[in-house]
């Protein structure tokens, strides 16, 4: 059980964040912003961190997840509130699973940079498929608040888009952390780390690298889909193709993973905290100039901690009592 103790640090961090959000006025949405960024980092980390493969189509999975929930709430809301929500989560997961099975099945046969190149088109492809084929509202997207208000009443709609959505994001974020911890301690994790370090050697040792890569990819993608369903569809109450298939989220997630430490459990937590807090406070203190300040700060952090902040701390903590709580 010792190897699960870093989870304690993770859960503690969430508890502190939630407490801060609840007790200080005006801090709840910023805390949710941080948790959103941690979550997208955490879900990407399952694949990028463990295998070293960069998935440039990452945001597409958040997007299809958002659509899964959007379709359930927009088109099947006569089922009643709870069945619709359950259907939404299932649809989000299934859509993400489908996309990841297809993309992974093809692209994961490629190595390293070639995989990254193959995934670049995924996001644009799905976006234009939805817009061009006019499925699910096409370019007009799905606007939900009016529909929710009509089907479930104004109170329920407000509850869904605030309390429920926020709780959903937190649950998904924590779940991604738990899944990461599980993988790190499982046969899957060892196989992934082996193949990250040297894919040929891992193959020679008898590890079915394609299978393990595919599993990690699909887990990462389903988690991303659930984040899309909660943090976007439920919380924002609309799904626009241009908004959910926006490539900058992929880049942000990669930055967060690298910042915190790829392949570590707490990396995305630290990376997300640094990234989101810096962004939020810089936007408030220096509106319009924050990106100019943020970029050099991020470069400094990366230069100081080439293995990510958590990678560095874990190294320092080796042999101390803290060792068990940082990973």
């Amino acid at each position, binding site marked *: 059980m010792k190897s699960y103790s870093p989870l304690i640090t993770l859960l503690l961090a969430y508890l502190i964040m939630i407490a801060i959000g609840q007790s200080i*006025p*005006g801090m*709840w*949405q*910023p805390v*949710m*912003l941080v948790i*959103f960024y941690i979550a997208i980092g955490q879900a990407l980390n399952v694949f990028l961190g463990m295998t070293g493969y960069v998935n440039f189509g990452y945001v597409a999975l958040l997007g299809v997840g958002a659509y899964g929930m959007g379709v359930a709430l927009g088109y099947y809301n006569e089922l009643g509130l709870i069945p619709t929500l359950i259907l939404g989560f299932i649809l989000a997961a299934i859509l993400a699973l489908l996309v990841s099975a297809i993309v992974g099945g093809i692209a994961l046969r490629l190595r390293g940079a070639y995989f990254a190149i193959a995934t670049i088109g995924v996001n644009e492809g799905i976006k234009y498929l939805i*817009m*061009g084929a*006019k499925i699910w509202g*096409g*370019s*007009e*997207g799905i*606007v939900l*608040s*009016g529909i929710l*208000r009509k089907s479930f009443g*104004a109170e329920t709609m*407000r509850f869904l*888009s*605030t309390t429920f959505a926020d709780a959903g994001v937190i649950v998904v974020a924590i779940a991604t952390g738990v899944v990461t911890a599980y993988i790190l301690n499982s046969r899957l994790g060892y196989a992934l780390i082996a193949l990250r370090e040297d894919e040929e050697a891992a193959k020679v040792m008898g590890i079915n690298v394609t299978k393990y890569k595919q599993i990690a990819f699909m887990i990462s993608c389903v988690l991303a889909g659930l984040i899309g369903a909660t*943090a*976007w569809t439920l*919380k*924002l*109450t*609309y799904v*626009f193709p*241009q*908004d959910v298939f926006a490539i*900058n989220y992929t880049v942000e997630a990669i930055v967060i993973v690298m910042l915190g430490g790829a392949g570590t459990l707490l990396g995305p937590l630290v990376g997300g905290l640094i990234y989101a*807090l810096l*962004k*939020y*406070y810089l*936007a*408030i*203190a220096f*509106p*319009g100039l*924050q*990106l100019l300040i943020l970029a050099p700060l991020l470069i*400094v*952090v990366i230069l*100081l901690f080439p293995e990510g902040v958590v990678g560095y701390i874990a190294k320092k903590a080796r042999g101390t009592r803290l060792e068990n709580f940082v990973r």
Partner: protein
Amino acid sequence: MKKLLVFVLVGMVLFFAGCAQQQPQQATTPAGPKEETLYFGAPISLSGKFAEEGKASLYGMQVAAKWINEHGGVKVGDTTYKIEIKYYDDESKKENVQSLIERLATVDKVKFILAPYSSGLTLAAAPIAEKYQVLLNSHGGASDYIFEQGYYYVVQTLSPASKYQTGFLDMVKKLDPNAKRVALVYEDGEFSRAVHQAAKEYAEELGFEIVYEKTYPAGATDLSPILNELKATNPDVIIGGGHFADGQLLAKQLAELNINVKAISILVAPTFPEFYEALGNKAEGICGPAQWEVGARYTPDVADELGVEWYGPTQDEFLAMYKELAGEDAVPPYQAAEAAAAVLSYAKAIEKAQSLDPAKVREAMNGLKFMCLYGLWQIDPETGKQVGHEMDIIQWQNGEKKIVWPEAAATADPCYPMPTWDEKASGATCGS
């Protein structure tokens, strides 16, 4: 290495502490007994894809606030409020908008928020504004659906998408009751779809006949198959477009295929000077809707004639003040005028309500009607949708962009019917 690390960490902690302390101090300005500062909050896109529009709207807001303060501020009871704009950069991102709206509503205790730019971001802001029961005034979100979701605290200052092409149809009907055949060719996008669906309904209401309707995908590079079909239907009037590139392509290919009609109105593209630069005198006579244009003749006199109250700077004052903020050569785009009008509408509604309670101000807005440099301001009480403001219809005449509709704002008579492509090829222009 270790020292550097400590240094950076300490620096960051100090930095956050500084930020955290700085804000509340600003929010609680020392208050005199009779004169206080009233903050209007605004998440603005100063970076990201709406950076240009965001900057222009911020200048517009600041100009309006300055004008209000120079002209006696906002009076509620015997207290005079000076207006200040409290703004943050939302980076054109939906997540940031939600955090910033909450910050404005709780930390800064702002009751009146100017919505972020674009329909999507306004929609992201709406649930949070509604949660904290603060007013959200949309000056950059044109889509009608924002106001069909049942949000009470969300009101609109600019014309909704459904009104973009209706002014043009009114104009054609007035100029030529015999022009009946309308063809629609537009981009398959959320915005242009909303615009043209509404235009289609309105045209049918006015007694026009829709002889052709087709959409083309975003990023289309050849419209000739569609236009050849369109030519066969022999329309009198064409309306369409979407964004800049496709609007320009539409005009160019209409010329190439020599499709002559009496009037054309294209969304977005004709409002840019680059449209004329690219097409030369082929652009002559082409119309397009604009929320506002420099030169729109909304003046206190026009307001008098219409029997509504005038409020805010005149256009000359506005242009001068805008230049002070944005630089000598800056010409305000329509985003600046929209944003200014939103600030003015808050000031006017607060004075009318004699209260700073958002619910009371919202109620006062229901009966509010005034004119400013941007045009009329009046909302539909139930949805909050803008119904007073009319789109300006611009037309290229003799190499200049003229406002030809509505009559209250017009700077020139419409050139109707527009010259044919053959006439234009031999150098004809509107008014030559």
